């Protein structure tokens, strides 16, 4: 597994992070160490074994499609600094 600047930059971009040069350097070293050690799980025989997305059995539950009480528009917007006409105001999308 080659961990280099190109890979770290690509991953960071996908995660919407801009790393400083220092962070880039540090994370390359860290990831090399971590992935090197974590490759140990390759040795576990998991042939025919399905992944456990949960540790205990969870049944799907649906409720009736009824209108229930929810936050008011004012409450929903209480924590934002960017709002306009009762809506969230975001950065430019296009």
């Amino acid at each position, binding site marked *: 597994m080659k961990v280099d600047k190109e890979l770290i930059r690509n991953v960071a971009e996908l995660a919407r992070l801009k790393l400083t040069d220092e962070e880039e350097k540090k994370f390359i070293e860290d990831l090399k160490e971590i992935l090197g050690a*974590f490759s140990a799980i390759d040795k*576990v025989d998991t042939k025919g074994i399905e992944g456990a997305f949960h540790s205990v059995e969870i049944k799907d539950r649906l409720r009736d499609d009824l209108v229930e009480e929810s936050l008011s528009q004012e409450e929903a917007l209480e924590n934002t600094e960017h709002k306009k006409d009762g809506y969230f105001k975001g950065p430019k999308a296009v």
Partner: protein
Amino acid sequence: MKAVDFITQIRNGDIDVVEHTRKVIEQIKKINKEYHYFNAVSEKEALEQAEKVAKNPSGKLAGLPVSFKDAICVKGVETTAGSRILKGYRPTFDATVVERVKKEGGIVIGKTSQDEFGFGAFSVNMGIGYEKPLNPFDKERACGGSSGGSGGISQKADFPHISLGESTGGSIVNPASFCGVFGLCPTYGRVSRYGLLDYSNSLDKIGPMAKYADDIALMMEVIAGFDENESTCADKPVDDYTKQIDIDISGMKIGVIKEAFNGADAGVEKAVRGKIAELEGLGAEYEEISLPTAIKFGIPTYYLISTSEASTNLAKYCGMRYGKHEKLEEGFNEYFTKVRSMHLGQEAKRRIILGTFARMAGYRDAYYMKAMAVRTKIIQEYKKAFKEFDALVCPTVSMLPPKFTDIDKLSVLDHYNIDNLTVGPNLAGLPHMNVPVGFEGKLPVGMMLIANHFDENSLIRIGSDLVK
């Protein structure tokens, strides 16, 4: 004083709840200046609740001071999970556990300090601008993590108190061990997580931390049980946990995890083995058991899964609806990137990078999916053990609470490896509890009990019998 005894006195009118709450708030402010156990002290809300309880002290937790890990939403009280990116966020609703505590007359005194979003085993990976909590027995040492503030205040408080922590890979039992208190991480799905700022959805659990096993049992009765707001919450009846305190453990069979003592500090091993030897006198049997997959492969399995889930969970923190905002300029990618890069701490960034990588096209099968399959094997290993044993036991953490100066010398991988004993039961969703079993010098040692799914009863029964 145990919470149970305190509540009786409140109900009898022997203690003035408003006066008591006022004193507690003063005291935690004072402790906080020195030890940094709280990110927020909710004085106004606490006194308002105390006034209500004074009029009607009938609740199961009447007048009891309760603190919550900062990752748990409390209406109107700043909730940040210890991250600057959420600075200023005041939830418009209570988490289900908060609602249940308040309904029973519990008094929310504040939000406890933690590793940012729960990303740590020492409470040293603090968000930007937050101070590390200091160990109640030695201020040069760590409280453990990630629910470090909850552990610290549970030990340091000389008033009756219960804290609610949260565990993803060991974040309840680890700080409970380092701070010398009980800490119970329930079965996955036993306690609703509605209103918890997620770290890793398939692993997160909320549970109590306190000085006495009786108080752990009491709090579990209040917070456990079905919640229609949380799709993973189990629809199963809640046990009478407090009744377990008086039931002895004769006839129980306990497995001592063999591999868990490899590399353990000599003082930790001595205290834990000493306590295990007491089991026989209490009428329980014990013998060694081997859990090779959980102990050997738990760390990579846990970190690949938890960071994968965390990287998607943290995507919502982008300076839009709550928390830190910046000036709206440029396009949305540039804006989100700017806010996240400015306000997330180092370990949060590192785990986002690791988790994003592990789920990326081309690597997903080798890392994320492989870890999920190993997790199945680990669960099977435990389930097999519980065919033979009522509970398993081992040290909670291999080391004594370390000095901050020694933590500074550890690599990132060293940090991750601290969780080697706690990630197993967390990956398998098994209830587990730290039992404070003694001291090595002036530092506390913790022993971990693990039980089968939804068998919190056994943990409380054994823990309370071992530490009277």
